[in-house]
């Protein structure tokens, strides 16, 4: 694609892509650390994760300001307009993902000294999946690849199923032994948060498809299998 005749505009749009990625990288890291703080029973890491959420929020505000500046000064059209509106929406999702990582870290703090209900097998797997989905959705954003974005949308089913499965399993523990209820509920919150991260990654991926195609696939009864 040719460059903008207005170089500062071009530079600002490039900068926008970079900060969205920076925010995305940070948020991915937050997911990994939060889950690790849980599985490794590391309260220090959990606290560090909670603290770092401020940085995520700061970048969120920075991106909002940059987008508003671009909208006000350049009256963007077509793809540029979609890039800016997509960035605005993507960062809202990323900010929420950051919050969820933070919530997971809070549960990690609470569970650090408690006896385990069961071995951490499914939650790390869900954590990896969630992080992968965020990573892929941002990759799709950078290279503007709708096919890759669609893969993310489809991966959401897997994480949903894992959450359902864990729900049933934890429910059976709680029925069997009410003393596990507090711990099991906390684990269920972690699972729910990871499942929600998958939903937000899906939102990002859907926005990428809008960015490239100019058509929204959100809120369709059935998600397209291919583009």
């Amino acid at each position, binding site marked *: *694609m*040719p*460059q*903008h*005749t*207005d170089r500062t*505009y071009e530079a600002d749009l490039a900068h926008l892509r970079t900060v969205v990625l920076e925010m995305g990288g940070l948020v991915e890291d937050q997911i990994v650390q939060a889950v690790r703080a849980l599985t490794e029973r590391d309260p220090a890491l959990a606290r560090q994760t909670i603290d770092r959420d401020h940085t995520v929020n700061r970048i969120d505000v920075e991106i909002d300001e940059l987008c508003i500046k671009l909208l006000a000064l*350049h*009256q*963007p*059209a*077509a*793809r*540029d*307009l*979609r890039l800016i509106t997509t960035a605005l929406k993507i960062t809202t999702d990323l900010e929420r993902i950051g919050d969820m990582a933070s919530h997971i870290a809070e549960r990690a703090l609470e569970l650090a000294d408690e006896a385990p209900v069961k071995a951490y097998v499914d939650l790390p797997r869900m954590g990896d999946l969630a992080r992968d989905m965020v990573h892929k959705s941002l990759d799709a954003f950078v290279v503007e690849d709708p096919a890759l974005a669609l893969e993310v949308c489809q991966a959401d089913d897997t994480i949903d199923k894992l959450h359902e499965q864990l729900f049933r399993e934890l429910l059976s523990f709680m029925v069997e032994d009410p003393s596990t209820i507090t711990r099991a509920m906390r684990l269920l919150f972690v699972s729910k948060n990871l499942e929600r991260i998958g939903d937000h990654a899906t939102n990002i991926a859907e926005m990428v498809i809008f960015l490239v195609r*100019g*058509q929204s696939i959100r809120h369709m009864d059935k998600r397209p299998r291919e583009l």
Partner: protein
Amino acid sequence: MPSPTLIEPTAVPALDGKPIALAVRDLTVTYGSKVAIDRVSADLPERHVTALIGPSGCGKSTFLRCLNRMNDYIRGVSITGSVRLHDEDIYAPDVDPILLRQRIGMVFQKSNPFPKSVFENVAFGPRIHGISDTVRLREIVERSLHQAALWDEVADRLDASALGLSGGQQQRLCIARALAVEPEVLLMDEPASALDPIATAKIEELIHELKEHYTVVIVTHNMQQAARVSDYTAYFFLGRLVEFDTTQRLFTTPSRQETEDYITGRFG
């Protein structure tokens, strides 16, 4: 820059069944050996605003001028193809260009009021077309000035010289003058390019009101203005019609790369 792909000369962009005011087919205009318009076909919808955009020299003004035969005056010009106003060929030998321009009025970039009173400027056209009754002329002048959103500002100085009005008022006076002969179509060539933002906003507001009664075709260099005032937009490049679509689609999801590059400010 590579030569743009074009809407095939015979293909006419669809109008979603809207009534057509002007139908242009295979219009080609050459000045000597220079091709200014290259096989352009388009339907311009009735009582809508169509904006013509594109870089300097793309042919948009030439296209506009073909719509009321203003190019007839230019030496060495050759025009082929057809332009039909409500199914009537405006280039047919029996068409009187003066009468045609009553039906298809024009407003220019630089306001050009006659050095006469406000009243006489607006009454000029109707007088030429044979109206001499003073009461009738007064009615026409008042109606036209109302339609041009100028009445309130000049009602008490109809006999003052038009040259004493501000630039924006002069431009609206020219619009009133064009409306006085009750045209069907109003062509506007950069009508606000010499005006300040407030006067520009008034002209744009006026264009919104005019489309209730008139078909408006406007040439503008200001893409935001095209986006604000028009229902349909035609993008011209190197004498060709590259894309014609509803303004919303053209500015959000244009179907051609050349259009996208132009409206997003990638001028090569």
